[in-house]
């Protein structure tokens, strides 16, 4: 198993953001986390990538417990992510933004950087080619010298995606990657993710509200509500689960009568 989370818990003061969540992701598998706003989905991502330290529970990445490890080490092990609110680096071009994900892995010293020694030139050139390759995959080659803030929202999301995949991670975490995309962009995005999985075979963990993305892509869905794991299983079963529908639409709401399944959302 690539990622295995056991009984994870995290609270902020009196708020139990994550209470008791267990989930697992395998390589070459897409797993989705869904749940109402404030359910604790992004907190789970932040716990995995080391931004917060878990209060209890284990996060096993390739068999090693990564709870308490600093963020950069976890990233170095092969966990990369995108952010819900885009976090691209201001002051760097699109290409340089993507290259930063590779820079931590290059090993030339300050002195060879200041003197531009051959070792530095070779490493940076190889990294640039990798970054260009990643930009080509997401279809942004023509914008490589732009400042990311000059790009429209949808393209900025794709820059973040390129930055996340360029280091060939083992686990890719996407936090609401389809938010704000229009229907045609959405279809293109879904096929892009499917293609990425086929090409690189990484495990993908997705937080998403758009049920179309979740249903078409994921093999397994975890439903979180108030920090608790509600249920998990394949998309069809989860969508028809009355508990899930209750959490999403409410018990006696008007929606519940017409909408028998989340699959139709």
């Amino acid at each position, binding site marked *: 198993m690539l990622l295995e989370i056991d009984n994870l818990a995290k609270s902020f003061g009196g708020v139990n953001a994550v209470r008791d969540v267990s989930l697992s992701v395998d390589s070459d598998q897409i797993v989705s986390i869904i749940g109402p706003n404030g359910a604790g989905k992004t907190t789970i991502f932040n716990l995995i990538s080391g*931004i917060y330290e878990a209060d209890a529970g284990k996060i096993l990445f390739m068999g090693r417990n990564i709870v308490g490890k600093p963020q950069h080490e976890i990233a170095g092990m092969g966990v990369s992510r995108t952010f819900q609110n885009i976090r*691209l680096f201001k002051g760097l071009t699109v290409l340089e933004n993507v290259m930063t994900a590779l820079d*931590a892995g290059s090993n030339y010293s300050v002195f060879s950087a200041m003197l531009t020694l051959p070792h530095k030139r070779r490493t940076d050139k190889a990294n640039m080619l990798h970054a260009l390759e990643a930009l080509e995959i997401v279809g942004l080659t023509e914008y490589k010298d732009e*400042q990311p803030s000059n790009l429209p929202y949808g393209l900025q999301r794709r820059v973040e995606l390129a930055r996340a995949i360029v280091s060939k991670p083992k686990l890719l975490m996407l936090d609401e990657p389809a938010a704000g995309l229009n229907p045609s962009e959405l279809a293109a995005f879904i096929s892009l993710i499917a293609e990425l999985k086929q090409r690189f075979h990484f495990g993908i963990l997705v937080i998403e509200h758009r049920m179309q993305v979740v249903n078409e892509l994921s093999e397994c869905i975890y439903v979180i509500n108030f920090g608790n794991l509600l249920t998990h299983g394949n998309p069809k079963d989860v969508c028809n689960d009355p508990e899930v529908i209750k959490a999403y639409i409410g018990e006696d709401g008007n929606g519940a009568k017409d909408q028998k399944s989340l699959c139709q959302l």
Partner: protein
Amino acid sequence: MSAAYMNYLFSFLINNVFILMIGMLGVYVLTGLTGMFSMGQAAVMAVGGYTAAMLSKFLGMPLFITMPAAVSVGALFGFLIGIPAVKLRRDYVAIVSLGFGEALVAFLNNSASITGGALGLTAIPKYTTKPMIVVILLLTIIFIWNLKKSRFGRECIAIKSDELAAASMGINVARVKLLVFTLAGAISALGGSLYVHTTRYLDSAAFGWDQSSMWIVIVFFGGVNSLTGSIFAGIILGLIPEILRFSNELRIVIYCIVVLFIVNFRPQGLFGETELDWKTMKRIALALAGSFRRLFRLFQGQRQEQG
């Protein structure tokens, strides 16, 4: 303007503006690239100056020993300021470095038996020549330029822009910050060693927080990410008070007005984030040529109308 005045201005530019600019380049690496405010950078320059001054004055060491010694001691002090600073949030870094710098200056001022105290150190051997200062400044600029275009430059800018995202890219934020503090200390101390061997006099009072904050003004004036912008701003802001010397007190006012104008109307700095490299110069040249051509055509059109 008399030739003597031009001559004076020229030697002021090299002996004063250029040397202080090396100190400022340390602040550029810290504040411009990495986004950390150091209010004690001038004190690190003073440390470099005292190291070089004492080694040469009391022990008769030549320049090729005093300069590397100053750089190493400066790097050490930069590292020491960096240790507490990397654990703190950005605004607290300014306070820590301010305290550190002021304490250092006060210490140097009060240990009169070694440093000369408030009287300062005098009769320090003069080792530098004008071409030498220019060459050392150019080398420093080239080194920093290369650094900016390497993984370290990208990591620094990433940290300045978004520390959390930088860490999730695998960047060891604390290590990069510590490295930058050390490097900035080395650069500023290099400027300090050149300063003492040029002016032959050192008084720690000149290296308090006012000098440090002046450097931060210069970096912001030029454009935070832009090395060429900082250099340009360093020359302009270094020369303005000297050129306006005839107007006595008014020069401070004019200086402040210039700075406030930039802060108000171009908050990203004179150059913003662009560097004045070949690509930008070519673009500017093409744009200028284009507008000249248009002007020329307009002019011709008018003549034809008249004819």
